């Protein structure tokens, strides 16, 4: 289990527990559940790389305690 912090810098900061073998889409769903936005409206980024839905977190080397940028589309 890893815990990831997602922050749009507009007032929402969520810590989400997930498995490293979850896909980015799963993570988005979890985030959506916590924040109340639709999951398909969520964009996760780290610097300029936008994470794609079908790829596992461990493949993006997303580890415990990492900060992701949360955007909406």
């Amino acid at each position, binding site marked *: *289990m890893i*815990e990831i*912090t997602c*922050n749009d*810098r*507009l*007032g*929402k*900061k*969520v*810590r*989400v*527990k*997930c*498995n490293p073998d*979850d896909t980015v889409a*799963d993570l988005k*769903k*979890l985030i*959506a*559940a*916590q*924040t*109340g*936005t*639709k999951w398909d409206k969520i964009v996760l980024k780290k610097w300029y790389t936008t994470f794609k839905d079908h790829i596992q977190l461990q493949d993006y080397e997303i580890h415990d305690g990492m900060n992701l940028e949360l955007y909406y589309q």
Partner: protein
Amino acid sequence: MGSSSKKSKDKDRKRRHSSRSSSLEREYREKKHRHHKKHHKEKKKEKIIKQYEYESDSSDVIEVIPDEEASTPPPPKIQCIHSPEIGHGQSSESLSVDETNKLRAKLGLKPLHIDSKSDKSSKQKEDGKRKDDLGEFYHKPAVNIATKHQQEKIREKLTQHKEKRHLDQKLSKVKLLGEADSDIDDTLKWIEKNKKIVKARQEAEKRAKMLEELDAQFGVGEVVESEQRLKRNLQYTEKNLHGLEVEHDTENFKEGQTIVLTLKDKDVLDEDADVLVNVNLLEDERYKKNVENKKQKPDYNPYDIEDIDEFGNLKTKSLLSKYDEEIEGTKKNSFRIGFDNAAERRQVIMNTVKEKLANKRLESLQTPELTIASDYYSEQELAKFKKPKKKIKKLRSKPQTIVSDPEGSKFYTRRPKIKEDTDTIITDDVPAVDIKPDIKVEEDIDDTLERALHKARKLKQKEAITTNSFTSVSGIKDEPQEDGLDPGAIVLNTTAEFCRTLGDIPTYGKSGNREDTEDLLDYEKDAHEDVEMDMEAVEETTGGWNAVDPNRSQEVSVVAPFEVPILDEEPDVGSGVGAALKLAMSKGYLEKEDKARPSNSKLAHLQAQHYSIEDKSYGEDFDRGARRERYTGPIMDFKERDAFKPNVKLEYIDDEGHVLNAKEAFRYLSHKFHGKGPGKNKIEKRLKKQQQEGLMKKMSSTDTPLGTLNMLQAKQKEMQSPFIVLSGGKHTHSTTISKPRN
């Protein structure tokens, strides 16, 4: 989105404030409408103001529910964990594991695997293994040094304790002095102890007797005895030692001393007999040898001093005696046990004494009888007496240096040196003139002596000739030219050569500048002359009235065999290169270097005017000195010549042969150096200048350039008048010229 939210807000407001009086609302609406037409900013301000107004108006709480949340399904009841800094926007919320699991279940995801992971991590820690980044290898964890140290400390302590315990145990068994004393002090106890011991001994004796008796009964004793006897027979005794060799000198063994001998080490396969040695004695010997080695003087024995051994005899030394030991091995004294070699030893001593005496010579004290010494050598003595060989010295008169000789001073002054060289040191680099096979150059050095000898020879010849001349003149011609000269050889002497080169000096020989009339030059005189001279000589010898001066008559009668050519016939060039070279040499086409004498050549006029012999010798001396001192270094300090003041004059001459002054020379060199000549104009200018200069030089100082003065003078001469009238008109001019004629 913004617009929709606005709308909803408006609705809310409507809803909320519906309970209020409609008039107010209307007013507000109107206002709003009015404002709507105006600025947006104002409107915003107003909004805020209004809100405050409302709040102030009504104290009820307004709940603002965001629109977005309404659209999405409301999140399950979340136990919000607020981060410590609860800014309004910076709060981070997270679900607990259970809640997330529930959520995941709803979303259709597998639950979080917390347990397994934690298990894994714990397991990893227990194993002390760690996966590397690739997950391929497990790494052994690094050892914690602190724990290691601790373990070591503890272990040490434990071992110390153990040792202590051991020691304590040991010591506990040993009786201390005090305790022992207490035992001995108790006499009763001690007596008892002794009694016990005595009893035990007696018992043991008894038992032994019993056993013996038993043995006797069974006849064991006899068997044992026989065995013992056998053993005694087999024992190694003196008999066995008889004839064994001991490798030590007998002096080492003294009466009453026991020396243990052992068998000497040897190879297993050796078939030599056993040798006995004493280890201590061996070591002593080795020590002695080492000391000897240390004492040994170095091998260098320059005066060949002979060693003397202990008996005072001279040791006979073999060649390179120091290696004898290494080659033949060390000599060792040895004797055999049981053989008395006293006689031998005596013999040896006798021998040494004999040797000693053999080297000594007996001197008798008697002296030989005195006899009278004779004045003369006996025959034997004479035979002994050797006459010292006479050293045949060649007489050499000192060479004359004739500087004033017309043939060239250099030649004369140089020659003697070369000659001396050839006499004393025969070196290759000195060109030996006389070695040449066919061409013989007579030594000019020995002029005086040579001349004297020559004279003597001539006199003899003359006598012969005079006697012959009575019979016939032609006989003279057949006379061999000179002794010891084979006809194939060319005789060159300086005079001959000089004459050859000189040839056409008209005054030579006529003015009587020759030293001797009877010089060798005579040989080159014409045959006619010779004949005439001969005739004269005959007349003189026959005529009775003249006071005969023998010298004079001989002088005059010097005769060379006539028609003998100076140079022999030319060698056959066809026979080979050598012959050709010979010819060339004889003709003078080829010149040897040492014969290159510029003073003698026709180029003499080109020689340096102020060249002096001193200069030459100086240079040569210097050169020779340099050769000598190449290895030793100069013996004397370098001396500067005081008189040496060279006259150095630098002159530059351009391509046309003009002598340049400093400025021009610089320009010329500069142009040459830079490879860039002056411009065309410059060249023309300079040419013009040069021409003018030339003209100026050519111009006579007494006349005008057009030669007017000359013309005038010529006219005067022509007219034979002391004056000339100068006038402008042509006619007048002609008239003036014509006038004096008339």
